[in-house]
């Protein structure tokens, strides 16, 4: 039930009823983007899909930053210090 996967918006369909076409590894699926109507979705956005609905937009910056920090593990004490103090964006909206 928690199964949710990333997909990319490749076509916006019915604007009023919030349908879009999403691509997951070359497979295209019609999904509902109504739950993202406040933020708005654009072509090319990456979203998290669950039972045919887009639940959230995926932030590329957050993903890249997370991987960057992890790649610094084992590098140096300064790097460790930085990660030790890092608390992922509690106040900022994504």
């Amino acid at each position: 039930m928690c199964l949710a996967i990333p997909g990319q918006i490749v076509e916006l369909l019915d604007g009023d009823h919030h349908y879009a076409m999403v691509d997951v590894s070359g497979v295209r699926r019609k999904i509902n983007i109504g739950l993202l109507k406040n933020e708005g979705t654009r072509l090319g956005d990456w979203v998290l899909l669950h039972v045919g609905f887009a639940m959230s937009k995926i932030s590329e910056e957050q993903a890249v930053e997370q991987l960057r920090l992890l790649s610094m593990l084992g590098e140096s004490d300064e790097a460790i210090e930085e990660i030790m103090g890092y608390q992922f964006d509690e106040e900022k909206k994504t």
Partner: protein
Amino acid sequence: MKKMSIGGVIIAMKYVDEFRDPELIRRTSEEIHRLVDPDCHYRFMEVCGGHTFSIFRFGLQNLLPANIELVHGPGCPVCVLPVGRMDDGLSIARQPDVIFTAFGDVMRVPGSQGTPLELRARGTDIRMIYSPLDALKIAMDHPERQVVLFAIGFETTAPSTALTLMRARELNVPNFYVFSNHVMILPAIRTILDSPDMRIDGFIGPGHVSTVIGVHPYELVTEHYGKPVVISGFEPLDLLQSILMLVKQMKEGRAQVENQYSRVVPWEGNIPALEVMNEVFEVRPFFEWRGLGVISQSALKLRPEFARWDAEVRFQVKGVRVTDSKAAQCGEVLKGVLKPHQCKWFGKECTPEHPIGALMVSSEGACAAYYHHVHLRQAIGE
């Protein structure tokens, strides 16, 4: 993002493959080993069934030091459904003209008189769907039948059911009904924490539920119970990083809510999702959970304005109560008191082919995970 080439076949699943990078996994695992206090025994509970699945799917326990124990919580919405509630659903399915629709996971869950698959084999019209919208479509394609959606899931899925109901109302679809079994995660976590036989040091928070409810609700755990919570993604790197963050918090004497899954989980949650849930659903005064007992304010039912589409109103559900057999220990496994292989029926009377409870058949059930991964290997001493 760079495409990965594996064995000559290029497979690039963005936002998935990067979080399975072997080098980063190795480093994170090493860091955990470096950071743990060798004299401590850490017990972390993952609440969400999807996390249980990932932990076993990727063999993550092998990458953790021996003194970190992962305890599997009641985060499988199919597993916590009492047998009586399943029976109620299946009695609706057997009504004339009903098309009963449910997600794949439900199809092999045993009711008192068999699983939905077995009933289907004997002629009951039960259909597997992948989205609540599929059920609505079936209703529109078959105006002469009564189509019932067996709605299951935590807050991750409830907004989708809600939106589907709003669409049904907008299109005035008269033959679509929802049998709501949506439950809420925080009441379950609270029940675990209140349980005297539980000792949990920290929680791996449910990643996808949190995209809806946000991060704030977990402050109940940190402030009232003083345990750290790290909301986690589902890839191996996500889970390892979350465990690293929990160990760090404990080392520093902190008990805070941290959002490891920040690329997807917004701090405030998904406002439109919360709004549609609020428009369609209200909280039941109490609801029975398998293994956890009756929990107040822990489940959702349709508001009176949506009574027209409420299967419990239309079909006068009896509210059968079926007590679990004393020998089957589904409840204790759900609470994390027992590991699956400690249940005396595990692997003997209870297997995925003839399950006693949903834990053995749901893809998110702890017993199924154990059976397919740990149990078979332990039996041969790997």
